[in-house]
């Protein structure tokens, strides 16, 4: 386990335990930001040459019918 980082993990876990109504908003903003970042990466990649193929390969999508942007 990464030394130093584990203290941070433990400190946040204690915050979650002691503040059951406060942690979620912070957490939701963090998780949603990751997916928003992914969506903008995806949009950029789709505009690049072979972007569609790269994305298909990245996510190993074999069912093209399910993803309109692959058609």
């Amino acid at each position, binding site marked *: *386990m990464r030394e130093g980082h584990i203290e941070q*993990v*433990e400190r946040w876990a204690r915050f979650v*335990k002691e503040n059951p109504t406060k942690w979620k*908003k912070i*957490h939701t903003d963090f998780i949603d930001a990751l*997916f928003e970042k992914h969506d903008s990466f995806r949009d950029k990649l789709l505009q690049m040459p072979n972007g569609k193929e790269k994305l298909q390969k990245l996510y190993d999508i074999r069912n093209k019918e*399910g993803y309109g942007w692959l058609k």
Partner: protein
Amino acid sequence: MERQIEDRNILDRFCEEFCAVVEEHYKYIVVSGFLAIASGRTRGTEDIDMIIERLDLDKFKLLFEDLTKKGFVCMQSSSTEEVYDYLKDNTSVRFTWKDKELPEMEVKFAKDVLDEYQLKTRVKFELTGLDVWFSNVNVNIAFKEELLKSSKVLEDARHLRIVYAEQVDEKEVQSVKQLIKRFR
């Protein structure tokens, strides 16, 4: 504790929507990292892992049809038979919302006594605010500490040990670790 709908992040919404469909057809559990994340661990993930009871093709067809109607697609194939064959061979299959490559639900059939044990002892966790069945906290900790062991996963276990301190039963953790040594 009832959480507000607007508190739900994209993983929460995806997981609850998917589980609500599966619940109508199969007994399921969400396993691996998502319990730690849904319980406040601040790390990213692209997929959620689910184990479902092993059932026949006819019943699977009904589930597949229902998932499709509710806006989910399988990344490997749109053929029910092909997807069922993957599952039957203990290969996981991945579902997403239509037209979205993320997040994914990685689904597999229960394959041994450990998976059966997890299904039998499944629980819902108030802290997550989600109407979702998870494998219990002791099983989660045992898998992370005995089998998976990466830094990220050991930190997940530490997080679970703190937020669910009252529910951790060392006897069960140890007995699941013994099962893991025997079957995995």
